[in-house]
């Protein structure tokens, strides 16, 4: 399904700020895989997603989805294959437009847009039934402008928009980090439910180790641009948070006390 091979990206090459964000990263996902990604700040987690989403072109290596090499595709061209939810609840929706207008744009993700009138009754009914599943009462507010929604409501809407037209690959970059804990739990629960029910291939970055182990079927840990841990199957189901921290220390070397605290601190 997704094949990332030997991806390398160096930012600000040959300057004092040179930074190797990705160092020969390889990752293969099977259809329906849900991988959670953990690692300290600056480990390269977002860079991995950005390379997959086409935000930048890697220095070397390739990204292949379903046999198609998309390494050099512009981001908007990948939209038919990939959908994304960002950390900032403001970034996934158009604030001045209504809920139904945002949804109709998502329904057209990666498809040709025409001069046809965008909305109609059957689409509205479809949106209502999909919004109902969120359990936030948004189904009664189709013509409300998105800027009037709370952060959690906007993020739930963004998640619905990302999955309305099923992508090959769903990318979630700390998409609950800006929400209060209760709302975050709700959005995570929603995420797992949606990904499971449609068997979406998903990559989710999280700072929450408990989430990392409870969601999905595979967990990878990144450090200094490399994948240093990759657990699945029984190894993963037997994993505890404290053992995960321990493994992190072992794999990354003993000098990582700060990072350890950073990870532990988010629990």
């Amino acid at each position, binding site marked *: 399904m997704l094949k990332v091979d030997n991806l390398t990206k160096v930012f600000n090459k040959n300057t004092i700020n040179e930074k190797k964000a990705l160092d020969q990263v390889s990752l293969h996902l099977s259809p329906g895989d849900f991988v959670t990604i953990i690692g300290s700040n600056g480990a390269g987690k977002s860079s991995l997603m950005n390379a997959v989403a086409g935000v930048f072109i890697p220095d070397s290596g390739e990204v292949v989805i379903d046999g198609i090499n998309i390494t050099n595709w512009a981001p908007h061209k990948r939209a038919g294959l990939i959908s994304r939810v960002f950390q900032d609840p*403001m970034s996934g929706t158009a604030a001045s*437009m209504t809920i139904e207008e945002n949804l109709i744009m998502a329904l057209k993700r990666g498809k040709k847009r025409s*001069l046809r009138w965008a909305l109609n009754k059957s689409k509205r009914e479809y949106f209502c039934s999909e919004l109902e599943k969120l359990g936030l009462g948004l189904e009664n507010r189709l013509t409300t402008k998105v800027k009037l929604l709370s952060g959690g409501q906007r993020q739930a809407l963004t998640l619905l928009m990302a999955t309305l037209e099923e992508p090959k690959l769903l990318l979630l970059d700390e998409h609950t980090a800006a929400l209060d804990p209760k709302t975050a739990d709700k959005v995570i629960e929603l995420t797992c439910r949606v990904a499971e029910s449609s068997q979406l291939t998903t990559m989710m970055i999280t700072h929450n180790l408990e989430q990392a182990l409870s969601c999905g079927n595979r967990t990878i840990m990144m450090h200094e641009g490399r994948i240093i841990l990759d657990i699945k199957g029984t190894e993963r189901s037997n994993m505890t948070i404290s053992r995960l921290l321990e493994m992190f220390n072992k794999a990354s070397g003993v000098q990582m006390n700060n990072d350890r605290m950073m990870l532990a601190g988010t629990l």
Partner: protein
Amino acid sequence: MFSLKIAQGTLELGLMYAIMVLGVYLTFRVLNYADLTVEGSFTMGAATAAVLIINGTNPWLATLIAFFAGTIAGVFTGIFHTKFKITALLSGILTMTALYSINLRIMGKANISLLKTRTIFTDFQSLPFINADYAILLLSFITVFILGLLVYLFLNTEIGLALRATGDNELMIRSQGVNTDIMKILGLALSNGLVAFSGSYVAQKQLFADASMGIGMIVAGLASVIIGEVLIGTSSIGRAVIAVICGGIIYRFIIAIVLQLGLEATDLKLLTAIIVLIALVSPSIKSKVTALNPSGKVREE
């Protein structure tokens, strides 16, 4: 005094300028792009139509060609901005400046008279059942009605939504697979097409085209958009379109009234700048007033 005849003339001009205001609305509000190309494309529309008409082209065709001339100007600004990464403001200034020379080339001299020539208005007058006294008014009204309706319909199509989203949240609509560069170029093209179309109408009403008739047009357009929005509101697209059209007409009446009150025509641009300044500052004044008034309900937009 403000005679009925002056009022009618003002209304006619207001309707024609409202076409330009629709164009400014597309860039300034929908795309969130302050486009100075307008100053050049307004003149370009007038110049193109005038030259074609005095050389014997059918005035309706000449008016249509003026529209397309404007779209080309918009495409250039769009390419400067999206492909060459020049700021929005500077891209518009570059096209506007280039157009000053180009417009003089088109006309061959600084102004062209359309006295005693056939225009869309003389054609319309000669239709059966059309009262000659109201021909200009009626044709301008029909034109604004149709164009306003088209803009409204367009902004509700799939492409229209993508255009609006480009002005609202570029990152979001790009991740939905929309090429936002193309959207900006499209928006600028349509906008400047409307502006040039407006210029060709004004030239045919005033019976001349002049190399400097577009000067100050952007600020007049902004003033009109803001006046309309403040008076009528923007809670939906339909309402916003009606608002900016009315804003264009009201703006012309304000100008006509102050001229009647004895202000020099040369002082108008100063007055317009002051109107825009007040309008731009007033939302913050308004929010401060409502903040002081605990019972004041917050209006949606």
